[in-house]
């Protein structure tokens, strides 16, 4: 019978806390960069300019149809060989996570925008609004509300995906758990604490997403 002992793990609680902090930093940073890039991609897709649309779509498919882990390994180990310079692991991690987020966010934004009835933009145009005014005043406020649940969902996934950057030795939460495991030889406790920490952070966020979603569905 296995005897659980969390005492050695708790002694390493500063490692877990630091790891959780790093995970949050990478999540927030990659969401922020991904948001801006995602918006640009989305507007490129909707621009009606052929080459711009194809370029943006190609980028999206590339990042949506390969595993994040493979992207991470390729950008960290392969890309520097191609370009002839070194890429620090933190930079490779941030770049990959951000590009990955951008590809998915762009699709969330695009879906939200095209779901708004064409009559809405026509009504805006009919009172003399420019395309930009129609987008800013009429389409985006409605689209943002509609895309919110999908956006939060994607961001929750993004938080979990940061665990993959441990394979290139970025000292986030999952990496710290394997350090603690190495020091204590207690994988059961180390990885249980790891799972509990992810859950404790994400559960409130998914609950919040549910509330947002039900409010969206009820029209407010």
């Amino acid at each position, binding site marked *: 019978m296995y005897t659980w002992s969390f005492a050695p793990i708790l002694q390493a609680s500063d490692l877990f806390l630091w790891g959780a902090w790093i995970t949050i930093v990478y999540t927030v940073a990659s969401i922020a960069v991904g948001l801006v890039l995602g918006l640009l991609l989305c507007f490129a897709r909707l621009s009606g300019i052929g080459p711009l649309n194809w370029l943006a779509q190609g980028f999206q498919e590339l990042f949506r149809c390969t595993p994040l882990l493979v992207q991470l390994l390729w950008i960290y180990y392969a890309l520097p060989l191609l370009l002839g310079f070194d890429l620090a692991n933190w930079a490779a991690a941030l770049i990959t996570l951000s590009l990955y987020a951008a590809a998915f966010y762009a699709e969330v934004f695009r879906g939200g925008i095209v779901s708004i009835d064409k009559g809405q933009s026509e009504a805006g145009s009919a009172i*003399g609004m420019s395309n930009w005014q129609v987008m800013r005043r009429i389409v985006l406020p409605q689209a943002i509300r509609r895309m919110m649940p999908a956006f939060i969902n994607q961001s929750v996934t993004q938080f979990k995906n940061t665990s993959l950057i441990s394979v290139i030795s970025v000292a986030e939460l999952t990496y710290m758990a394997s350090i603690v495991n190495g020091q204590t030889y207690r994988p059961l406790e180390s990885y249980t604490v790891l799972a509990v920490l992810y859950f404790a952070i994400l559960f409130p966020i998914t609950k919040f997403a549910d509330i947002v979603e039900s409010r969206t569905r009820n029209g407010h």
Partner: protein
Amino acid sequence: MTSVPPQSARETVLEARGIVKRFGAMTVLHGIDLSLTSGEVVAIIGPSGSGKSTFIRCMNMLEVPDAGEISFRGRRVGPKFRGAGDMLGLGELRRHVGMVFQHFNLFPHMNVLENVIEGPITVQRKPRGEAVDIAMDYIAKVGLAEKRDARPDQLSGGQKQRVAIARALAMQPDALLLDEITSALDPELVGEVLGVVRGLAEQGMTMVLVTHEISFAADVSDRVVFMEAGRIAEQGSPERILHNPDNDRLKTFLARFHG
């Protein structure tokens, strides 16, 4: 603000010349001419698929014609939002020519007042106080003053359409385009909307209305235009068109209503 031209000066407000519109391989408008003088009410009737709605949407360039031109007060309307040289921009055309749609198209994220002040504030750059005064004037005119804070989803179809009319009027347009504005309404709600349109006609508002309400068209309009397969088949005074038609297709079309 907008100067109302004297009734005697019957100048042309909006004019369509040779409007052709194709959707893919299908030609839906085969060169339509129509001019609208100030204070005139023109009703466009015709069977479904005759191109009535496409044509009225060409008049404010929501549909861009494949050939022909629209001019507003003698100025040709260009293809771009901003005017250039002699060409009038789409933005300016639409500031002067309002439109009301079959499906209302109210902005669901704004209340009644916000829907109506949106144009004056965002497009005409009026100060908020002034925009609210103008908007409340028209909201009261369509009988919805007590609904100013209601959301569109709290209104009946007839109320929504009256707000949509107030939204178009708040731009103080020179002409209004009404595109089958009662077609999506329950029969018992049609009257309240037509009542508002009748009031506008009596006050001399220049209007083009596409409608299936034949007797209303006869009642309120100065001229009835009968469209058929993308062409104007017949036009004239309501009395002549509706009670003494020459055109066989028009006779067949009207028989359905008199039936």
